[in-house]
């Protein structure tokens, strides 16, 4: 099992990915605060190690489904920052052409089957995607991201059971950040660790320090290997924390400033930087360069995205977008048999 901190290229990739996810969310936070983004945003600041460690355990053509708090999953899976930012800025050049917004960003070409505005909504879809991989013998694995809140939705239970009985190549990654919207996980669950629910469905579950990118990477890699070998699903519970409120309307009445500050002191990205320094794989300059690369990438993305035209308010275009046309080309969608 590779040690992410020890190999320079790998360490650099992990750092750049996490910092890019962080800067992306900070940019969204600022742009929203300025009134430039519509709707609301569900920020994943503080959860970067969970997204990055998980996605680094996947091959490029493996698949993921994501959540309403999905920007970091999207970044970690290799999405185009400009197209992500353009979507949030309601531009025609956005991933969804301004029709989906934050909660529906998908990059089907890179295996991201989409964020989802319904808590738990993507879990059965991930299981279906895994079923398709099994039926076609593609060898690909699907990761289903969801939060602690989703683990109480019927969709989770039905999907977990189906994945188990059919031995499907799916890894369930539960990002337990201790809160649904305002309900603390210890009030929503009578059990200590969500991972114990896997046993109820007959597959392994493990609880992991979701802010340790190495641990996440190792556990998800093991689960991915199991899935790829045809041995069925695993539940990996990444324990983490979100620094920002549930959404932009959240006044954080349900938690204390002290609690937030305590978690901020254990920044998962700073922790990994320390591991990299200890391993001696990158110099201080190289670590700073990784931070700067993320910042520069975001600034470029914002500049380019913002300059694009807004999605046109064309009713005919909207109506035309409802149904897929008969003779679509395979280029724009997943083609099962290459």
């Amino acid at each position, binding site marked *: 099992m590779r040690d992410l901190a020890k190999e320079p290229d790998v360490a650099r990739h992990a750092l750049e990915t996490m910092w890019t996810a962080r800067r992306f969310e900070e940019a969204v936070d600022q742009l929203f605060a300025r009134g430039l983004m519509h709707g609301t945003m569900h920020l994943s600041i503080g959860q970067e190690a969970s997204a990055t460690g998980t996605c680094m355990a996947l091959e490029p053509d493996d698949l993921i489904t994501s959540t309403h708090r999905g920007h970091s999953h999207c970044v970690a899976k290799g999405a185009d920052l400009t197209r992500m930012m353009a979507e949030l800025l309601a531009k025609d050049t956005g991933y969804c052409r301004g029709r989906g917004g934050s909660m529906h960003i998908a990059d089907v070409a890179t295996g991201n089957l989409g964020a989802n505005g*319904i808590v738990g909504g993507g*879990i059965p879809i991930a299981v279906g995607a895994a079923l398709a991989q099994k039926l076609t013998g593609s060898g690909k694995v699907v990761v289903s991201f969801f939060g602690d809140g989703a683990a109480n939705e019927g969709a989770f239970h*039905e999907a977990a059971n189906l994945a188990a009985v059919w031995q499907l190549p799916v890894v369930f990654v539960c990002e337990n950040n201790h809160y649904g919207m305002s309900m603390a996980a210890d009030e929503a669950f009578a059990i200590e660790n969500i991972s114990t629910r896997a046993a109820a469905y007959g597959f392994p579950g493990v609880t992991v320090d979701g802010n340790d990118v190495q641990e996440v990477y190792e556990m998800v890699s093991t689960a991915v290997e199991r899935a790829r070998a045809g041995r069925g699903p695993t539940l990996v519970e990444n324990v983490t924390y979100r620094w920002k409120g549930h959404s932009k309307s959240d006044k954080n009445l349900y938690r204390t400033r002290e609690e937030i500050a305590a978690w901020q002191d254990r920044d998962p990205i700073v922790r990994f930087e320390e591991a990299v320094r200890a391993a001696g794989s990158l110099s201080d300059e190289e670590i700073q360069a990784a931070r700067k690369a993320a910042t520069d990438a975001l600034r470029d993305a914002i500049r380019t995205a913002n300059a694009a035209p807004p999605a046109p308010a064309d009713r005919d275009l909207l109506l035309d*977008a409802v149904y897929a046309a008969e*003779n679509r080309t395979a280029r724009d969608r997943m083609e099962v048999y290459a």
Partner: protein
Amino acid sequence: MTTIETSENPTDGPGPAGSAVAAPISGGEAGEARELTYAESVRETLADLLETDERVFIMGEDIGVYGGAFGVTTGLLERFGRERVRDTPISEIAIVGAGVGAAICGLRPVVELQFSDFVTCAMDQIVNQAAKIHFMLGGAAQVPMVIRAPAGSGTGAAGQHSQSPEAWFAHVPGLKVVMPATPADAAGLLRAAVADPNPVIVFEHKLLYKQKGEVPRNHFVPLGKADVRRRGQALTIVATSVMVGKSLAAADELAAEGIEVTVVDPRTITPLDDATILAEVAATGRALLVQEAPRTAGFVAEIAARITESDTFHALKAPIVRLCGLDAPMAYAPELEKASVPQVPDIVAAARQLAKGA
């Protein structure tokens, strides 16, 4: 394995080598007609699709070993095996959701919900996921999934096993809904539904399963095309599903009295072929709309609205008449059940009255 294509419905991108995409037939094996029951017609069509298109698979509760609650899928498990004919746990959310995921990944799942009433258990996956993914993702994905469900009353199954919920789904942009009324249409619309890159819901009325009819081989009926079953000058009946047959029976009785009526079967609920309906209503000036589902906000209300908001309004000689199910849950006792939905005498009486109005 023949690859079947026509210019009317081109195949949607390169399919697997040597396999046919479900598409209409033109020439080739001419549509030799055989008498099949509606259930046999659906079964044969599913078998054809499983045989010719390796993207197709079916799943649902009790569809394998049991052969489906109404016997529609009998024999398919033995012929095609457990990978492609999948019995599932009782998990509507997962059944439909897995269908969504598999469809996004390029397969063509045909999932069965054991009773139309159970759509409610899977509503999020149908309405918030399947229907909207293509739009919300800016066209980057498609959900070519078919949901089949036995619908309707008449078997004494009572309130939670007897519904006709087509109106709920007609109201959801992104879905297509069909209600085949004959064995031929059951085959043809199912082929079209599987070929369609969008999610399609097929409501098969339970009382129709044993009905016999001529079914041409490889029959294909495009979505969005109504069928004019007979023409007459007195009035136009627009009826769906099991009400089509009842309307035709009523039409025979009325013909004996010298009242000749037109009967139109929309076949596809959404997208509706309103051009045909409006033309046939304009031709007679009198419209009688018949559905089994409860009256209030039922689908024929939409048809009525389309008639009155169009130029056809000026051709109307009388108010539009709707004959619908009662605004009540479906009762259990047989006489109560019959009284709850339009029957042939009700259609005859309503038509007679409409025809004789000034």
